[in-house]
Each structure stands twice: as C-alpha cells, then as structure tokens.
C-alpha cells in the first residue's frame, strides 16, 4: 500500500467494493444500518455484512472505514454503541464520526476514529481539539488550498499528534458531488419533506430547478435555473497542488453511485497520485483522465473552493452529464473455466461484435471490455437479439449474479 497518498473510494454495495479494489483504492468507506449519511439509499449494508467487508478488505490489504456520521439522538446511543463494538470486533480499521457521542465512545474503546467533514473542521485549534480522539481528519469542503496548507504546516510545526502518536493526517474530498450547504449541514430536505439530510435522508431539493419571484410575482431573471445544484468536484487537474498542501488522504464521494463509476474514478485518481509521485504528472495525462472521468456519472465539473473561488458554479442540467450511458442487456448464466468462455442471456435490446460492454457483480466487481466474438449454439454470429443465450471469451469468471450492460454514447 502506498503510504504517501491514500486514495479512499466509496463502497455502497459489494459491486462497488470490488470495483474500488480493482481501481487500486488504498481504503474504502461504507455505512451500515441507519446511522450514516446514505441511510435512505436502496442498498445499504447491514450488521451481517461487517465481517465479510472486513475480511475482503484485510485480505486485499485495504483499509476499511465505517461511516457513522449522522446527528445522534439519545435513542440512537445503544445502536451506535452496538455498531462501533461490532465494527471493532469484525476488524474494520476505523469509524468516521461527526457526533461527539460516536467520537467519545469509539475513542473510549480504543477504536480508531476519523473526523467526518460534517464536523466542519476549518482551523488548527479545532485540529488540536480533535487530536485527543482522532488520527485522521477530513477538512471542511469550503477551505482553499492555502488554508489547507496552513493547517498541515501547523500540524508539523506544533507536532500535533493523534492517539496513535503519529502526526494528525489531513484528508479532503477530491472528487464527486458537492452540495450547497456548509459542510452538508442542510435544512431544506427536512423543511420540505420532514426528511433530514443530517440523518442520511436527504431528498436532494438542491438538484431541482427553481424560479425566483418577489412578493408581487415579478420573476427574477437568472441565467441558470439550477441555482442550488453545484457541479461535481474534480481535482485531478491540480492534484499536485493538493499533495503539496500536505494532504495525505484523497476521498472520492459516491456511495450512491454505480460500480463502474467507483472503478473509473478510483483508477484515475490512483494513477494521478502515482504520476505525481514518480514525476510523470503531465498536461496530456490530465486531459486523458478528464476524458475518462467524463464518461461516468457527473453533473459537469468544477474545482470546488480549493483554488480560491469565484462563487459556486451551478449545474446545467438535472442528473448526469456523462458522455456515456449504460443499457442493461441481461445476466450471466454460466462460466466454463477450462476454455475461458462465459455464457450470458440477453433479456432486452441486442448486442453486436465490437460493442463496448460493462459487467458488474457483487463478487466480480466491474469488467469493461469490447465484444470480439459472439457465439450462439456454437456458431459464430455478428449480432445477438433479445431472448437469446450467447457465449463469448472472457478471462475472468462470470457468475449468475453478474449483470451485463452495453455502453452507449449519451444522447
């Protein structure tokens, strides 16, 4: 594992977890049950997944962090303690916390604590305060790199160490969704839907279009109706400045995003960090990564606040502006390991030789490939239609839990 720069990937499902490993993440973060910021997500891990996640991560030499960073009420305390106890026993590396209840409890049982961005850490004194509990702290997303550097310099100068005795490490968000609220502390979703963003149940009001009218009904002219939806953060073009600012951990947002997103983004940032470290970070490479990053889900990119900013840049549309989309085709049927052939069934649409496909699955992770050969009933064909089983050579094992998608240009 690269100790110098840690790339941390989101794992909202086993598919994404495997994708993060394939993208060469140094660490992954995930949530279980309801006390995490994606409590409302369709596929959330549960208690029963803790051991398996720890086992997968430990055997791949990847650190695993459990997010437990919602607001905590009294009635959550016993569940919170159960989760922390079980995570520690299962061999999870650390807990990412924002509420003092979690920070204090995890620290009291000597379980490694990381301070979540929700805590809004913006200065050196706050770092000193949390250094009694935590070795890694995620800074507020609103800081400029000059402010970040002043904090990391201060840590070295004043020798601020965490419980492990090592200097406190600074983590920042490197890529993914931003929201309009300061450190995610947003009241909109609670106000409109009784659904608190700070309990992981954000309904994403900020992603919709709005008109602004005064009390007399006069509409304020605004150039962009998505006045509250920031573009996605992308820092790959100035990762050198970030590393020079003393940041040790780069976090990729996206526990709600698809596995191929996780793989692509993790891979790009791993390559970029490595390129910086071995002196090959270049304009051409940045262009290549930017192109690749644009192929997966995004709301358009901007630099966040790191470079000191004109005000926020707002998204130009609802949902993704990715240059490609995936279309579901069907599922894996069988794999013949001796001859490296996989059988799939096409349930919808069609597939031709030369098509780009993505295969995702809870054990498989993500496979991206070009179809070179299609066989139906042992005969080579150019195209396979809906309802047909076909086989194709693949050197990785395909399982019935795997889903097959065709990658198409976005319209």
């Amino acid at each position, binding site marked *: 594992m690269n100790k110098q720069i840690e790339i941390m990937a989101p794992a909202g499902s086993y598919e994404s977890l495997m994708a993060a490993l394939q993208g060469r993440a140094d660490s992954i973060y995930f949530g279980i*049950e*309801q*006390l995490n910021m994606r*409590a*409302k997500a369709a596929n959330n891990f549960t208690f029963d997944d803790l051991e398996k996640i720890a086992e997968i991560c430990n055997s791949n030499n990847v650190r695993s962090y459990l997010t437990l960073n919602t607001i905590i*009420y009294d*009635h*959550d305390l*016993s*569940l*919170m303690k*159960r989760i922390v106890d079980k995570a520690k026993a299962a061999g999870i590396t650390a807990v990412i916390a924002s509420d003092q209840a979690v920070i204090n409890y995890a620290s009291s049982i000597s379980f490694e604590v990381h301070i979540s961005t929700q805590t809004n850490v913006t200065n050196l004194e706050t770092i000193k305060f949390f250094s009694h509990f935590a070795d890694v702290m995620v800074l507020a997303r609103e800081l400029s790199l000059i402010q970040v550097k002043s904090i990391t310099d201060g840590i070295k100068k004043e020798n601020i160490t965490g419980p492990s005795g090592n200097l406190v490490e600074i983590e920042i968000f490197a890529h993914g969704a931003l929201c309009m609220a300061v450190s995610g502390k947003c009241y909109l979703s609670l106000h409109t*839907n*009784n*659904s*608190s963003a700070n*309990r*992981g*149940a954000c309904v994403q009001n900020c992603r919709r279009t709005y008109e602004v009218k005064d009390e007399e009904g006069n509409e304020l002219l605004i150039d962009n109706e998505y006045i509250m939806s920031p573009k996605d953060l992308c820092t790959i073009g100035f990762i050198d400045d970030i590393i020079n600012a003393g940041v040790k951990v780069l976090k990729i947002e996206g526990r709600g995003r698809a596995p191929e997103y996780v793989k692509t983004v993790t891979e790009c940032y791993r390559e970029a960090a490595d390129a910086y470290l071995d002196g090959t970070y270049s304009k051409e490479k940045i262009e290549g990564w930017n192109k690749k990053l644009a192929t997966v889900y995004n709301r358009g990119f901007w630099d966040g606040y790191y470079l000191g900013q004109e005000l926020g840049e707002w998204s130009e549309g609802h949902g993704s502006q990715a240059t490609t989309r995936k279309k579901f085709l069907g599922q894996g049927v069988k794999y013949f390991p001796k001859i490296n052939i996989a059988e799939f069934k096409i349930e919808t649409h069609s597939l031709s030789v030369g098509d780009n496909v993505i295969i995702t699955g809870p054990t498989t992770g993500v496979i991206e490939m070009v179809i070179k050969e299609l066989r139906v009933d042992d005969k080579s064909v150019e195209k396979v239609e809906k309802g047909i089983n076909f086989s194709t050579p693949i050197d990785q094992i395909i399982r019935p839990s795997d889903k097959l998608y065709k990658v198409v240009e976005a319209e």
Partner: protein
Amino acid sequence: MIRITHQREKCIGCNYCVEIAYDRWRMSKKDGKCTLIEGKNKKGFFTAVVGDDEYIANVNAAKACPVKIIKVEKVK
C-alpha cells in the same frame, strides 16, 4: 377500526412517530428503529388493527414519516 402498517426494515429511526403517536409507537433500544406496538410481522410488514380514536395521531405520524413507510387505513 383502523389498520396501521409499518415497513420496519426501511425505518431510519427518526423518532417522529413516537413523538406524534406515543401510544402506538416505541423506539427499540436494540436496533434504533421504531416499533409498532402490538404489530404482527408478515414478511417485514408489521400490522396492527386498532380503534378509530387512534386515527388522527397515526395519520399525522404517517405524514411526518420521512421515509413514508407507515400506512393508515380505515377498515370495517
């Protein structure tokens, strides 16, 4: 009579229903999710048939539920 249904698995433990319809809901200390008192479990959906006097409180609880997993209907 009214029938209250709770899809408990999706509960995020916000505690609204307990605060609004205290006689019918409790917070579980064990898993931090709300429990429908006297609810019978059928494939993850907990159901209780109770008197009309509880209608208003439980309709309000259903309205407040952020994940919309409480259903209240009148039955004969």
